[in-house]
Each structure stands twice: as structure tokens, then as C-alpha cells.
């Protein structure tokens, strides 16, 4: 079989597996992983009106994975009547983050300026993280909508990280690590992360050392969180397709190795 046709068979197979699994609307049950359970318990035990910060540190490319995590966390936070300061350290996360916040805030009847605020974006992320340790309003003199930050009731109660109980970085890269290294190390700020699955192993040492409270990782993590929260969403919808895709990749790996070892044996036992 030519290399090209093998490639197309693999591509077509993947597309077929995922589409068929997605069309079959079977919902799978998941048990919450320790990290997700820890995140959920944290929000459940926070007193009402506690101020948290959510930083949308991701690009549009990771939206399919990030969206379920973000919506689950936002819904939980608003249900617990927490007050949220949103911002972004990625240009694309700005519009996305604002959309998510306003969408979920509307679901819970939350008022902008009093219950939540979206500060916008600053390009030099380390400078922004360090600057907020001194004064958040100095880094963000205006919010995303152009209002002076100190005119917002929520921002009048916040000066720097001292008033922020937890920073949740929703990241598809290493922005979360920079939160840990600069806000965590410099200002003792507690950090939690919502991550794409690809980044999860990079953050494990920080969880083990206590520098990172916990992570909610990938579509599976989002599905587990949705189940704990009691409202299934995109995380659960994609779980069967994800499982089938994994099985497909496993089969490909096994077939590839069988083919390899067979051809190696043939070469070794050749004339």
C-alpha cells in the first residue's frame, strides 16, 4: 500500500470514528479524578462574596477544549455567589473571556460592575502579573468596556492580590506557570489552573510541591466537573467520541508495531 493511501485511510478512519461516535448521543459516566474533585470542593467551601480572579490565558485555537472547562468553573463560581474579576494575558482570550463571563453571568442574573468585572488584556504578561501584586488598577486603569476601573463597585474593594482569594488561570500554554512563578512566589497568591490536556503533565511538579492548588485538565476533566456540578455540557457530549478516538489511536499503534515486528522478522530471516 502506498504511503499516501495509508495516510488517507488513517485520516478517513479517524474522521469516521469521531463522527459516528458523536452522532451516537450516548452519555458515558465518569468518576471524578482527585484533581477535579479538589477543585470542585474548593469552590463549594468558599464563602459567598469571596473575590476570585479568572485569567483567560489561551488562544482561540484551543477553544473546543477550553470552553467546557471555563463554562463549568464560571457556572460553579456564580452559583456559589462568588465575585469574579476577569482578565486575559492573551490577545485572543480577551474577546472570548468576556463572552464567556457575560453569557454565564446572564444565566445567574449577575450584575456587571458589582458581581463581576472584565478588565481586558495586557500584552507583557509577566509585567502585568507582577504589577497586579502592587496595584491592579495601576495595571488596568480602565476595564474592557472603557469604564475607569475605580468607578466599578467591585474594583473599589480590591487593591492587589491581598483581596483575591484565588487566581484561576485557564491556559493552553505556560501562562499558568508564570502565574505560579511570579504571583505565587512573589506575592503568595494561590493559583489554580484549567488546562488543555496536552499541558497537564507540565504542571504536575507544581501540584506536587504545593505551588499549584489543583488543575482541571482537558475535555475529560471538564466532563467530570460538569457531572459534579450537575449540568452536563460539551465536556460530556464529546466523551464517547474522545474514548473512541483513543481506542482508534491505540489500535493504530498496535497494528503499526505488529507490521514493524513482522517485517523485521522477515528481514532477519531473509536469504
Amino acid at each position, binding site marked *: 500500500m502506498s504511503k499516501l493511501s495509508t495516510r488517507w485511510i488513517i*485520516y478517513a478512519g*479517524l474522521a469516521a470514528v*469521531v*463522527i459516528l461516535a*458523536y*452522532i451516537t*448521543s450516548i452519555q458515558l459516566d465518569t468518576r471524578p479524578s482527585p484533581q477535579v474533585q479538589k477543585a470542585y470542593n474548593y469552590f463549594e467551601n468558599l464563602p459567598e462574596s469571596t473575590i476570585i480572579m479568572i485569567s483567560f490565558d489561551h488562544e482561540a*485555537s*484551543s*477553544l*473546543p*477544549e477550553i*470552553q467546557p472547562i471555563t463554562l463549568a468553573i464560571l457556572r460553579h463560581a456564580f452559583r456559589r455567589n462568588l465575585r469574579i474579576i476577569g482578565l486575559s494575558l492573551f*490577545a*485572543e482570550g*480577551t474577546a472570548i473571556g468576556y463572552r464567556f463571563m457575560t453569557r454565564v453571568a446572564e444565566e445567574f442574573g449577575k450584575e456587571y460592575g458589582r458581581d463581576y468585572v472584565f478588565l*481586558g*488584556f*495586557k*500584552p507583557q504578561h*509577566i*509585567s502585568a502579573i*507582577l504589577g497586579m501584586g502592587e496595584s491592579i488598577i495601576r495595571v*488596568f*486603569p*480602565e476595564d474592557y468596556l472603557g469604564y475607569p476601573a475605580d468607578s466599578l463597585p467591585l474594583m473599589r474593594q480590591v487593591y492587589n492580590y491581598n483581596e483575591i482569594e484565588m487566581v484561576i488561570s485557564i491556559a493552553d500554554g505556560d501562562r499558568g506557570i508564570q502565574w*505560579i*512563578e*511570579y504571583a*505565587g*512566589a*512573589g506575592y503568595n497568591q494561590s493559583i489554580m489552573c484549567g488546562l*488543555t*490536556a*496536552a*499541558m*497537564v*503533565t*507540565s504542571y504536575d*511538579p507544581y501540584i*506536587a*510541591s*504545593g*505551588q499549584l492548588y489543583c488543575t482541571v*485538565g*482537558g*475535555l*475529560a476533566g471538564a466532563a467530570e466537573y460538569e457531572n459534579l456540578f450537575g449540568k452536563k455540557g*460539551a465536556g460530556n*457530549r*464529546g466523551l464517547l*467520541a*474522545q474514548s473512541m*478516538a*483513543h481506542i482508534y*489511536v491505540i489500535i493504530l499503534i498496535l497494528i503499526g508495531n505488529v507490521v514493524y515486528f513482522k517485517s523485521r522478522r522477515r528481514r532477519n530471516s531473509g536469504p
Partner: protein
Amino acid sequence: MDIGIIIAGLLTLAIYTFLYRDNPIYRAAEHWLIGLTIGYAMVVFWQTTLVDLLILPLFAGGKYILVVPLILGLLMFSRFSGRFSWLSRLPIAFMIGTGAGVAIPAMLYARTLKQLSSSVAPLIAEDGGFNIEVVVVAVGLLTTLAYFYFSREHKGAMGKMAKVGTYFLMIFFGATFGYTVMSRMSTFIGRIDFLLTDFLRLLG
């Protein structure tokens, strides 16, 4: 149907034509994306930083010290001039120096000391049980560090330690690969969700 969804769907399919092979439709979509993304970033950078932190405080707020970063920022453009291009070194040096200065304590504390200190953990737990995990982490850490120590030849005991370190690295790469597959598949599933639900309206 919303025109935005139609356009999003068509552009999605245009990008997927790359799976067949590189073609003009894909290249056009790719270049369109590049131009739009840069344009988007330009607007966001201008509004959120140059207007908010420089122009308004300097010209409307009377914060004249901001002339310094304004001049340094404008000097960045000198790199397009042959004769005065060396002036762009000044703002670059400022940014590099600033970044290096904040990095030292952060790297020292967060990446080195804290990581090392959390590797030192009790072998016997409170309930009297033996923490095999502490041994695994200690062995993994030391052998992987041995692997990356290139100032000494990997021979003898050092060689054996480095070999074990390789195995731990393979475990890390294997785990990362597994999670990366998960991540990539999730992104693809998201696009399938959009195509089937919003664009083609085959699912509710």
C-alpha cells in the same frame, strides 16, 4: 442561518482541504487568517496598552515621566533605518534586562528551591506505612538530573544512573503523548460539533 456560521463553516472546510494536500484554497484561507490575526492583535495592543497606559496618562493625565517609554518605544522603529538601527538596541536592552532581573528570583525560588525542597519527604508516613512514591520520585529526579549532566561522561555508575534517567524521561514523554492525543482529539471533536450542529444542522 447566521451568515457568520456559514462563513465559519466554509473557512473550516477550506482549512480541512489541507488533509488532501496543500492547495490554493487552503493557502488563501491560511494567509487570510494570518492577516486577520495580526490586525486583531494590533488593535488590541493599541487599545489596551498604548492608549490606556501611555497616551491617556501622558497627554490627558500629565504623567510626563511616560515620555521615557514613549521615546524608547519609538526607538524600536529605528531598526528599519540603516544608519540609526543601533538605537533599537536601547529599548531591547531595557526589556531584556528587566525580564532577566525578574526572572532570577522567580526561577531560583519557584523552579529550583521549591521543587528541590518538596522532593525531600518522609519515607515513613504517619500511619507507619512506607512511602514508596517518595523513593520513586527521588530516584526519578536524581537519575534524570544525572542524564542531563553532560560535564561528565556517562560511564560506570554515572552511566547507569543516566540510563535509568532515560527510562523516567520515556515515562514522562509517554504520559505527555497520551495527554497530547487527548488534547488534539478534543479540538477535532469540537470542530465536528460545530460542523454537525451549527453549520450542517444535522444534530440538535
